[in-house]
């Protein structure tokens, strides 16, 4: 009876463990296994391939550029998202009329499908009919619709900022809510104490709010980082990584490779997986997440 009792927790965690094993761990193992196989585009497994898939991947002409761009993409989107969200969270933490409505409105970009948002932006930027270009035309920023000047998604130097913008746009709601929840946990008396000690507003924010917000900030940034690194729909829907590979990240390359060489594509997935783990570890080191707030 006692032994049965000891097994009881297993009944509770068992289903979750099985779910994770089947839905998460098994595909990861399959992915790693596939990356060492020679698989034709048609899905025919032609035997082992050693490290050849990885060699081929690393020797792709655009590989280094794409990996560097992926890191820049993650850093740019996450930093901008966090900065915007910190400001928004502060704003939405104040009491003002219709605050509830404003908070609801903020959910919209989050609730809408990312793919849908990306396609909407693509059409708003269309050189012939896009509403953003019509506004730019009215403002005198471009001479006419339809030309290269109106085609911002056609060139990497103007397309990349728009891709980052859309990625920030869809990441801000979640981050803001995570930070709002963090702000709600900060007790009022620490602010009172700060005021008693004569701290100004900036000083209070820097020395009281931010440190106390760190747990929420860490989790929000971390989830964003993984999400953005693996983000596929925004870039795919808006540019397909083109022109060339000049707006592609590693996730886009992985998808493109899937139509020519499944083994190499799997190798890219494994590298991606490794990158996320490395980025996460670096981030946790830098943010000293497990150190007690001083």
């Amino acid at each position, binding site marked *: 009876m006692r032994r049965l009792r000891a097994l009881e927790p297993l009944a509770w965690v068992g289903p979750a463990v099985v779910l*994770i094993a089947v*839905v*998460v*761990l098994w*595909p*990861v193992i*399959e*992915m790693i296994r596939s990356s060492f196989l020679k*698989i*034709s*585009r*048609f*899905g*025919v*497994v*032609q035997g082992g391939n050693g490290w050849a898939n990885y060699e081929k991947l690393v020797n792709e*002409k655009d590989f280094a550029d794409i990996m560097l761009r992926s890191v820049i993409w993650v850093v740019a989107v996450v930093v901008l998202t966090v900065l915007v969200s910190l400001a928004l969270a502060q704003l939405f933490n104040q009491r003002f009329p219709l605050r509830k409505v404003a908070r609801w409105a903020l959910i919209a970009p989050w609730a809408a499908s990312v793919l849908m948002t990306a396609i909407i932006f693509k059409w708003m930027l269309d*050189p*012939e*009919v896009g509403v953003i270009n019509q506004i730019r035309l009215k403002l005198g920023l471009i001479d006419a619709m*339809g*030309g*290269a000047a*109106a*085609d911002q*998604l*056609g060139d990497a130097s103007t397309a990349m900022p728009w891709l980052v913008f859309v990625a920030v746009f869809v990441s801000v709601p979640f981050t803001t809510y995570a930070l709002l929840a963090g702000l709600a946990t900060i007790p009022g008396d620490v602010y009172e104490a700060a005021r008693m000690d004569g701290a100004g507003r900036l000083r209070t924010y820097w020395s009281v709010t931010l440190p106390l917000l760190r*747990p929420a900030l860490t*989790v929000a940034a*971390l*989830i964003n980082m*993984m*999400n953005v690194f*693996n983000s*596929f729909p925004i870039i795919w829907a808006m*540019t*397909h*990584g*083109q*022109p*060339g*590979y000049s707006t592609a990240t590693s*996730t886009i390359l*992985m998808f*493109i*490779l*899937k*139509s*020519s*060489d*499944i083994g190499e594509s*799997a190798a890219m997935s494994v590298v*991606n*997986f490794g990158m*996320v783990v490395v980025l*996460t570890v670096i981030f*946790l080191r830098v943010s000293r*997440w*497990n150190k*007690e707030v001083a």
Partner: protein
Amino acid sequence: MNMKLVGGAALSLATLLVLTSCGSGDGGSGSGSGDQASSGGEVTLKMVAADYGDGPGKPNSGETFWKGVVDEFQAANPGIKVDVQVINWNDIDKQVATMVQNGQVPDILQTGDYSGFVKDGLLYKTDEVLSPNVSGDLLQKFADFGKVDGTAYGIPFVSSARAMFYNKDLFSKAGISEPPKTWDELKAAAEKLKAAGVTQPFGLPLGQEEAQGESFLWMLGNGGGYKDASGKWAINSPQNVETFTYMKGLVDAGLTTPNPGTKDRKTVWEDFGAGKVGMVNGGPMSIPIFDAAGLKNYGVAPIPGKSGPLDTTLGVMDWIMAFNKNGHAAEIKKFFDFFYTGNAAQKISDTYKLLPVTNGGIEKLSGDEKLKPFLDALPNASFYPFQDPKWAEVNPAIKQTIGGAVKEDPAKVLGELQKVAEAG
């Protein structure tokens, strides 16, 4: 130690695993083998087909089309059931690859290529699953492309050809009397259109969707192609470099779609339908798009080449094939014969503006004015070198990067593609 933090970290770790594994999830939805013989010796053929229509729920969806065919077939052949799974073009190759990888092949597959299944002995030979009178009626040139090392495995399913569409209203507005035949005339016409305020005198989609098709049409205009006459890869041949240098000149002068390397064919066709494009290369399948956009006054002409209109054009064909894993050759033969001898092939041409692959089918359609230029071009069409196993790697590379040849140095971009073709 702050418990909240530990919880948060655990949560993030779990999220990390879930998110990273998303990237590698295969979208496969193949279900079991086709060997589910039920009582009474009934045989179920499992078929996977591509969707030529506008997707599920639309009146022209693949589901609706195949249901019509299958109902008729099953009524005539009790004892054989056909179970059709329709998949859209973007996903079908990847999903079929997953089925093959997992050993769950269908009995019949209808898609854009067959050649990769041959080497591993996955397919029936054509004469095992098709009656001689049917295979004899197939267009010879097309049927020949279904052969690997002299033996036929792929059966041509439908085909398509290309020609140049031009907007007659814009042409008369710009004072152009007839469609251009040569590159010089094309440039002159484009300049007149530009002067008349047309934003895209020539629609040039070199983006991911179909860059390999548009590029090939231009290469043919200068006696070039992906391979030379001896069958060697020649993507960076002098002719092709000259071709792309000419195209780059058009792009730099603002006479084409801006940044062609990022523009998909469908977008440019829609722009043509909206009256913003003067000329564009298209096929029968673009006619419904132009009609839907409300464009009526357009003409069809042969595609201009460097010194005269093309005497050949890009032919594209899709294939149907039979996998031998589950047996069922006799039942598959019945279904194929039914499909090609009945009115199903005609129905597919009517519904989707695709061209037939049999002499009989071409005869039946020869009365259609809009399709005539394409039907005439079919017997002398040129094709992608898709039987070369390297094409599977070259094609995605072309789709992704060939647009750079009209933006940067043509010789360099084409040279990189040549390297991909020659590697390994």
